[in-house]
Structure formats: structure tokens, C-alpha cells
């Protein structure tokens, strides 16, 4: 199969169709939905999830997972916020996020890869530790009313397009190139298919897994930079549903949770669909407390549908399961 930068398969076309249907239904349901202001809001709210989702795509494709990404973004956001408050130059402030994120990714990788601990349990344990760390660092108070130093990232436009869009495009292209045009991508997908076979084929499994966790951490940290630029505060509950959102978006996009198969463009479409639904339901009058229910239901529903359709096509071909 050829993989162009934006080449789409059936799954991704149907996601695009789902986005279109959602937009149509929600515009009919709420007069506030189909406005240019709201479109900008949806896109602005998608920035962090897009970056975190790209990292999560790599992790899931490798057969890994990280449920601590939301809190990692929180920790990085505290670093960015403190740098911002100290009036450091903008490039240093902006880079504080990715650097802290990458460092935390290194820590996660050390526990999960070197400790040979299942990623889900290892990152759940780290999630607890990080959550306490956030509380201790914030001392029970929000970072709020931060200076406007980072708004250049969102406000500045080049050729009419905000810088954030360029950053995301760059991150997407970098991930795409790494996955589809370098040995690293092949190694990563091979590990996702079977870690044992990858090891036996001489793939540097530990190195690839380490790099993937660090890259995911750096992307999460970059998301923190944009979070601070966008909201100019860091609250205690920051990122509490980000991990679920990211996993749901990536799975919606067609990346296999068992590893070995991934779709970056699917992740982008999954993020957009998720944010469109969340925004639209809010405008229709569904309280925001329902959001995790909707996201979780979407995750389970899509997976169940996938199984149902694959079983149908298998039985039509005269195959039976197992």
C-alpha cells in the first residue's frame, strides 16, 4: 500500500463524512454552531489534542500507551507558566514545554521500557505521582493572569494563517516522514506487530521505544506551550480528560490498539470529529459533565462497530472466527 502525505483509505473517508454529517446536524440544531467565530474556537481548542494525538498515534502503533499525557501536559504547562511569569525571552519560554515534556517522556520510558512494565500500569502509577507533583508545584493555587508574552503564537499570522497551524503542519510532516520514510517507522510498526519478532530480527527495540516515548513527551510539552498561550492560566485539574480524548481520537482514526497499524491523517480527522461533537453538544445545551460519557461511548462504540463489520465481512467470505 502506498502512503502519501495525506492519502486516505475507506476509514478516513468515512470519518470525513462523519465530520460533515456532524457539522450539518449541529448547524441545524444550534444557530450558534455554524459561525466563523465558532469554527475558530473549535480549531483553537483542537491544537493541544492534535499534538498529543500525534504522539499517542506513535505510541499505540508501537503497542504502547500513555495514560499520563494529560498530567504531563499540566507539569509542562507549569514550567511554561513559570518561565512566562519570570519574563524570560519568548523562544526560551516556548521551548520550556517541549523540553520538560521530553524529560518526563524519558522518565516514563525508563520505567516502562527498562523496567519491562506493562505501559498501562506503569503510566497509571506515574500518573498518580505526577498528580501529586502538580499539586505541590502549584501549592494549591492556580497560575492565573499570566503575561501575554506567548500570544504571538496564536495571534501572529503568516500569509493569513496563524503560526500554530504551521507548527502543527510541521509536526505532522515530521511524524509522517519518520513513520513512512525512515527505518525508524518500519521498526516502530514491526515492534507493534510483534515485539519478540522485532527483537529477533535485530531491531533495536529498546532504543526505538525510548525515542517514541520521548517524542510523545515532547509533543505533549509543545501542547502545553500552546495551552498556556491560549488560556494564560494553569488550573489544578488541567488535562484530566486529555488522555481519554487522545486515545479516543487515535482509535477513531483507525490506528490499531494492538499496534502495528496506524493512520496519522485518521488521528487528525478523529481529533476534529471529537472537538466538533464536544463543541456542538455544548451549544445544543448538553452540560459539559456529559463530555467524558460521550467520548467514552464513542470509543467503545467505534471499536464494537469495527468488530461487527469485520466479522460480517469475514463471514460473507465464508470464514469463521478463531
Amino acid at each position, binding site marked *: 500500500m502506498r502512503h502519501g502525505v495525506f492519502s486516505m483509505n475507506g476509514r478516513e473517508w468515512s470519518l470525513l463524512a462523519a465530520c460533515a454529517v456532524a457539522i450539518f446536524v449541529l448547524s441545524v440544531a444550534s444557530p450558534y454552531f455554524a459561525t466563523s467565530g465558532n469554527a475558530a474556537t473549535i480549531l483553537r481548542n483542537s491544537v493541544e489534542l492534535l499534538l498529543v494525538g500525534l504522539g499517542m498515534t506513535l505510541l499505540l502503533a508501537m503497542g504502547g500507551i500513555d495514560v499520563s499525557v494529560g498530567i504531563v501536559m499540566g507539569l509542562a504547562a507549569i514550567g511554561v507558566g513559570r518561565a512566562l511569569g519570570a519574563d524570560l525571552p519568548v523562544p526560551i519560554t516556548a521551548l520550556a514545554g517541549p523540553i520538560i515534556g521530553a524529560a518526563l517522556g524519558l522518565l516514563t520510558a525508563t520505567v516502562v521500557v527498562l523496567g519491562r512494565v506493562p505501559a498501562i500500569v506503569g503510566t497509571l502509577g506515574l500518573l498518580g505521582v505526577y498528580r501529586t507533583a502538580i499539586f505541590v508545584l502549584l501549592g494549591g493555587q492556580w497560575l492565573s493572569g499570566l503575561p501575554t508574552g506567548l500570544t504571538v503564537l496564536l495571534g501572529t499570522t503568516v500569509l493569513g494563517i496563524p503560526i500554530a497551524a504551521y507548527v502543527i503542519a510541521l509536526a505532522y510532516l515530521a511524524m509522517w516522514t519518520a513513520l513512512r520514510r525512515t527505518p525508524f517507522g518500519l521498526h516502530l510498526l514491526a515492534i507493534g506487530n510483534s515485539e519478540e519478532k522485532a527483537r529477533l530480527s535485530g531491531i533495536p527495540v529498546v532504543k526505538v521505544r525510548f525515542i517514541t516515548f520521548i517524542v510523545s513527551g515532547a509533543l505533549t510539552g509543545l501542547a502545553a506551550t500552546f495551552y498556556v498561550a491560549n488560556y494564560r492560566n494553569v488550573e489544578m485539574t488541567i488535562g484530566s480528560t486529555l488522555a481519554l480524548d487522545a486515545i479516543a481520537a487515535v482509535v477513531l482514526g483507525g490506528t490499531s490498539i494492538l499496534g502495528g497499524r496506524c493512520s496519522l491523517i485518521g488521528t487528525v480527522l478523529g481529533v476534529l470529529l471529537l472537538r466538533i461533537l464536544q463543541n456542538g453538544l455544548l451549544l445544543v445545551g448538553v452540560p459539559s459533565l456529559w463530555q467524558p*460519557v460521550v467520548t467514552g461511548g464513542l470509543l467503545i462504540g467505534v471499536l464494537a462497530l469495527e468488530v461487527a463489520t469485520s466479522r460480517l465481512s469475514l463471514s460473507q467470505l465464508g470464514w469463521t472466527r478463531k
Partner: protein
Amino acid sequence: MTRLRTLQGPALILSLLALLWAIVIVMLLALKPSVFGLSTMTTIIQFSTILALVSLGQAMVIMAGGAGIDLSVGGIVSLSAILTMLFLKLGLPPLLLPVACILIGVLLGLFNGILVTKLDILPLIATLGTFFIYSGLALALTGGAAQSGVPAWLLSWGRGVVLGIPVPFLTIAMPAFAFAGVVILWTAWGRWIHAMGFNERSARLVGIPVDRMRLVLYGLSGALGGAAALISVAWLGSARPNIGQNLELESLTAAMLGGIAITGGRGGVGGVFAAVILLVTLKTGLLQLNVNTVWQVGIVGALLVFVLLADRLSQHWR
């Protein structure tokens, strides 16, 4: 210490946990001598009842292998408690409250089991999804408000103490653990659970109904979550939508500490029980020392990572 090396399996885990427990107690006594009275012991057991039940279900699910894990336990506890109280308001006879609570837990657990066994969804993703659905529903249905209106007779059961031991512990947690221990040690079901966790393929080949067994275990985890919800309602006098918060982390830590292998096929319920007591003693002690509760989640998380690493290292050294 030399004798520790000769111990194996459950005995080793139990003696290690007892050692850790003694260390925790001595440290707490050194820091604040007035910590331990009879009332503190009652509090510790009262708090551990909920965690013990949930951890038991978690342990059984993990033991049965197939990457089994139940991340939704906290959501099951919250939602069972909330739904039961909402049904009570809709006219459910109060006498049926205990049955309804456990039944709702069973249904929520069976839903997990169906996702895992019938639809072949990876347990960690399936239960991560239901975790957010269940705990989200508990919050969304109530707007975050606690639901009161628990009948008085239930309160007297939930808050009763006999010889310094809380009644719910005597009537639910102890029988549950005794029953689970007997089943795992001396019945075919117990052998099946260990066998399917140890090697699922062989278990299927010798004719063990792996999928049905796993469905039952997820249902059981749900039932124990429902029982934990019942105890929380009867003890606190209201159903709180966030009562199950952090239970997935704590029950996993208890199961791992108690010697359950994350890959399945190894472990028993005695270790899990000892681990629950250790965890709750630690938490209660920190509370008595006026350490902020947010430290608890960090300490439990660090303990989980530490146990996992220690488990790997010990296998490495063997």
C-alpha cells in the same frame, strides 16, 4: 533475613508485607505515639472494606490473564451508588436497596465482560472507555451533588461496630475473601482461573470455557464494586458521585503488592488482603499526621511503580 530467602510463593509475599506493615507502624508510632488506639484500628478497617472488595475483583480479573484488567472499578462503585439512590427516589422499595446496588454492579461488570469476551476489545481500552462512561454518568446524572435519603436501618448496619470491628467488614468483606480463597485454592474454578492466566491457549485446548469464565469474573468484579458502593452508602449516609475516585489506581496497587502477576496466572487472595491493610494503614497514618490527601495518590502511584519494578528485578535475579 536469611530465613526469608528460603520462603516461597504466598508465604514470602505475606512475610514481606508483614515486614513492611511493621515498618510503617513503627515509623508512625515514632512520629506520633498517640496515633494507634482502638478507634484508629476501627477506622482503618472501615476504610479498608471498600478497597478490599474492589481489589479482590481486580485481582481475580488480572489473575485470569488475557491482559485482563478492570480500570472501571471506581466508576462502577460511583455509578452503582448513584443509580441505586436515584431508583430509590423513583419509588424502589427501600428493602430492595442492597440487592439493587449489587445487581447494578453486576450489570456494569457484565457489560465490561461482554466488551472483552464477545467483542474482543482489549481489556485496558474497553475498561478505560467504561471508566469514563460510568464515572462520567455518576457525575452528569447528579450534577456532582451527593444523594441523601438512606434508610435508617441501613445506616445502623453500615456504622455498626462489634468488638471494634465494623459490621460491613464482618458481614461482607470477610465472607467474600474467605469464599474467594476457598474457590481459588480448592475448587476446579480456581484451577481454571490460574490455568487460563498461565497459558490461555493450553487452557482452551483442554476444554476450559475461558470466555465464559472471564465474563463471570468481570461480572464478579462488578458485583464486588456494587457491594463496595452499598457499604459506602450505608456508612456515609449518602451516595457520592466521586466515591470511586482513584480506586482503579489503589486496587491495582493492592493487587500488585499482594503478589498478583500482571500477566496473570500467579497469586492468591491472602496477599491482596494483606496489601489492602498495608495501604490503608499507610493512608490513615498520613491522615493522622496531617499530611495533605493529595500526597496519597502520589505515594500510592509511586508504590505501584516500585512494586512492578521490584517484581521484574526479583525475576531477573532468580
